């Protein structure tokens, strides 16, 4: 049903339509509205045959999801930021055990300094956890990806993270065609687990595996993700047939045919970039954008194909690996190995800093002239950094950097953004 709805509520309704049997969650902004919505549905009796478990931490949330999934229940949870970090040990266990849990990550920065706003540092920290990671561009896609995620997870017996930008999507009201129960029932069959803790047919799940088979079990996890490269586009195509919408898949090209410059990004920033691409195309600039929906598995072949004609790529990413630079871009470079394509990394939107069209115009124009540095921090206030460095040079006990820099910008008062 098409309605004007908060992103979190659209996701909650889609998850409910997937008939989860166990939902466990611990609240953390900006994920909270999703699980609050689901808990209300369970309490009101509109989401039946589902147990909502209030847990004492994110570690418990993922542990409960593991137990529920191993017992054959369709299990869901959601988290963000420090919450994701707090559950990491269990996150690796869920994928290592091959349990098809679906988890929303309402993407948020990681502290310190504490910051509740959006970037991709949280999900990116778990890129090697063995979970499939899908990134939503809009609330429509976030909603649809959850329906697809349960199918993908259960088909492969692998957990799936659906990543949606915190606040920018979770707290935005826009129109979403929320999948109807009957549509979802027709698309998503009941969960038939590959492994299940069943008293009638007892098995162990989670044995210790020594050097004799550890490599092979781990390789199997990789092989499953390679299967996901085939399955994700199929599920997206099936979804389109069933729901009439393009959602999901591996990558999402926009005006990249014959584009000399291709911008690569994940998540909600793609919308703003598309507007800028249209405006630049109107001025005769040869530019397009490629959205990566599936970051894990990473679609090397799809990228190679999409970027075949590009002279340069600009990877715009909302996280970075301190000490080296881009995360997404290093993956993109793997896809471009052996190609002469120039590539630039741009780190943007950290901790909720808005990414404006004006900045993107300037950035892409610089890229078009090959005037960008290999690594750029968009809209970085160099002077602010320089002042703190000067303080540190001048005074051994220069004090806490974040507080010093906050004082410099006078960020105690109101700001537009």
């Amino acid at each position, binding site marked *: 049903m098409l*309605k*004007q709805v908060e992103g979190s509520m659209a996701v909650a309704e889609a998850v409910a339509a997937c008939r989860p049997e166990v939902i466990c969650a611990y609240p953390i902004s900006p994920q909270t509205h999703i699980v609050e919505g689901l808990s209300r549905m369970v309490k009101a009796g509109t989401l039946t045959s589902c147990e909502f478990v209030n847990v004492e931490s994110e570690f418990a949330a993922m542990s409960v999801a593991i137990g529920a999934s191993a017992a054959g229940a369709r299990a869901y949870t959601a988290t963000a930021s420090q919450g994701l970090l707090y559950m990491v040990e269990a996150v690796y266990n869920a994928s290592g055990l091959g349990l098809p849990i679906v988890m929303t990550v309402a993407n948020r920065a990681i502290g310190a300094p504490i910051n509740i706003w959006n970037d991709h540092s949280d999900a990116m920290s778990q890129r090697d956890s063995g979970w499939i990671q899908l990134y939503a561009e809009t609330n429509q896609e976030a909603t649809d990806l959850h329906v697809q995620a349960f199918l993908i997870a259960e088909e492969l017996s692998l957990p799936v993270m659906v990543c949606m930008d915190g*606040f920018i999507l979770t707290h935005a*009201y*826009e129109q979403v065609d929320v999948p109807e129960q009957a549509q979802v029932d027709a698309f998503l069959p009941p969960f038939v687990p590959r492994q299940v803790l069943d008293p009638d047919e007892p098995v162990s799940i989670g044995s210790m595996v020594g050097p004799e088979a550890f490599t092979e079990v781990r390789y199997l996890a990789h092989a499953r993700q390679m299967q996901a490269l085939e399955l994700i586009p199929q599920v997206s195509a099936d979804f389109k047939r069933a729901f009439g919408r393009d959602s999901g898949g591996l990558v999402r090209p926009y005006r990249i045919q014959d584009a000399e410059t291709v911008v690569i990004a994940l998540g909600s920033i793609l919308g703003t970039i598309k507007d800028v691409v249209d405006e630049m195309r109107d001025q005769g600039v040869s530019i397009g954008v490629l959205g990566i929906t599936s970051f894990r598995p990473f679609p090397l072949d799809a990228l190679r194909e999409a970027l075949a004609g590009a002279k340069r790529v600009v990877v715009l990413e909302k996280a970075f690996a301190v000490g080296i630079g881009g995360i997404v871009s290093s993956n993109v470079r793997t896809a471009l190995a052996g190609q002469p394509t120039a590539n630039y990394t741009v780190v943007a939107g950290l901790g909720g800093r*808005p*990414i*404006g069209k004006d900045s993107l115009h300037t950035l892409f124009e610089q890229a078009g002239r090959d005037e960008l540095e290999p690594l750029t921090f968009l809209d970085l206030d160099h002077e602010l950094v320089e002042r703190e460095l000067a303080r540190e040079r001048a005074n051994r006990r220069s004090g806490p950097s974040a507080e010093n820099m906050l004082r410099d910008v006078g960020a105690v008062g*109101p700001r537009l*953004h």
Partner: protein
Amino acid sequence: MVFQVRIHGRGGQGVVTAAELLSVAAFAEGRHAQAFPSFGSERTGAPVVAFCRISATEIRVREPVMNPNAVIVQDTTLLHHVDVFSGLVDGGYVLVNSAHSLESLGIGDLTGGMTASRIVTVPATDLALEHLGRPVPNIVLLGGLAALTGIVSLPSVVDAVRQKFHGSVADGNIAAATAAFELVQSQVEERVDAQAG
């Protein structure tokens, strides 16, 4: 063409809800709408900003509204702290919650040479107290915005309020928003007549 609204207020005044309801009203009229809060520290009493874009076509951009077509100021104590008129487009609209005239608020300097029929005050908090019994001006001002800009109709605002609230809260807000609509409409008509005359 995208119509962009920026709403300034303080935490607890329903700034985010106002943007949400405006988007629901626009959606009901068959348009695309995107409402979202600013990404600042939102605490009771702290300055808060929310945005709403309305368009006949899909809205893809996600940057904050930098060049609003309309600004709503829910709390006049913000006027001299926050640059609430920042980036307002030529020919844009301003709606200020105040029982005082623009002249006595001393914001003539801030708004430059705006056309008088496009900047109005309405005593939204007083109307809320009268009809609702609570000093919450957000929905009242949406009635004023409908009259000032015509971007959504008053019935669409009323329907949006009824979707979100029920009983006396809905009734009080709707009565106050309707009163604000009428007040603003008469102000605008007077000024248009004065300019024409």
